[in-house]
């Protein structure tokens, strides 16, 4: 393989590898944040519904 081509290819791929990993991790973190928020909202609305039905039973 050509000397300079090898150098450019290796550095390009390694930078892409680290950047790609960071981007993927950030996207997963964002997705999890959204899922966590949705789960918390669902739990809150479920507990409100439960409280409402408890009151109507009384």
């Amino acid at each position: 393989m050509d000397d300079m081509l090898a150098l450019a290819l290796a550095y390009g791929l390694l930078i892409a590898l680290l950047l790609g990993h960071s981007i993927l991790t950030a996207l997963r973190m964002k997705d999890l944040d959204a899922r966590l928020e949705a789960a918390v909202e669902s739990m809150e609305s479920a507990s409100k519904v439960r409280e409402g039905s408890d009151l109507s039973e009384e």
Partner: protein
Amino acid sequence: MSAADRAIPWLIGIGSLGLLVTVYLALVEAPAMGENAGFTAPEAYRILFIHVPFAWVSFTGFALLFGGSLAWYLRRSEAGWRLGVTGARLGLLYSLGVLISGPIWGAAEWGTPWDFADVRLNTFAVLAGVALFVALGERNSEDTAEIRDSLSAVGIFGFGLVPLTYMATRWWQERHPGPVLGGGEDSGIDPFILQIWLIGAASMQILFIGQTLMTMRLLRMENEVEKMLTMLEA
């Protein structure tokens, strides 16, 4: 947010900055190595400035995989399990860096990207395979104690390859360059080159710590979401 979580962007930022400095030193400041220095590819040798730190840091990943797997296996530690998975994921990331840059340098310097007779190359590839197996196994299998036990066993026994890989160039040196640190009378390295390696390794290690904390946080959050969804379903 804990102190460790707050440190994540700082560690990743400082590590990345250090890596940029390493790339600058490697590509601009380090001298070209001609045939008199024993290199046939005088520019491609600069790949080693980043290849070597990638390799050193990948061993930290394998060590986390080993320690975490052991903590899960012996104590059923949740944090230990998360640490092991983190070690597998990051060990895989950094060993991929080694397996990408090494063969490219080999193709330029040796005329061939791989040598199946070289023990160092092959044991390292198997180590990367161990990390790949654990990382994919954890991601694609049901999360049960039995699966965790099996993956932890692979992580624990796979770690045996680390000392073998480290010693391989001392015991059976074929094509991979021999040790430059602590390798006896014939070893040694130019102080400037060593300096760039150490800056690269320190920067990458800082980045690795940031990534470790971030991956552990990610796994913790995944666990919390799973628990909440189970509660909602119940």
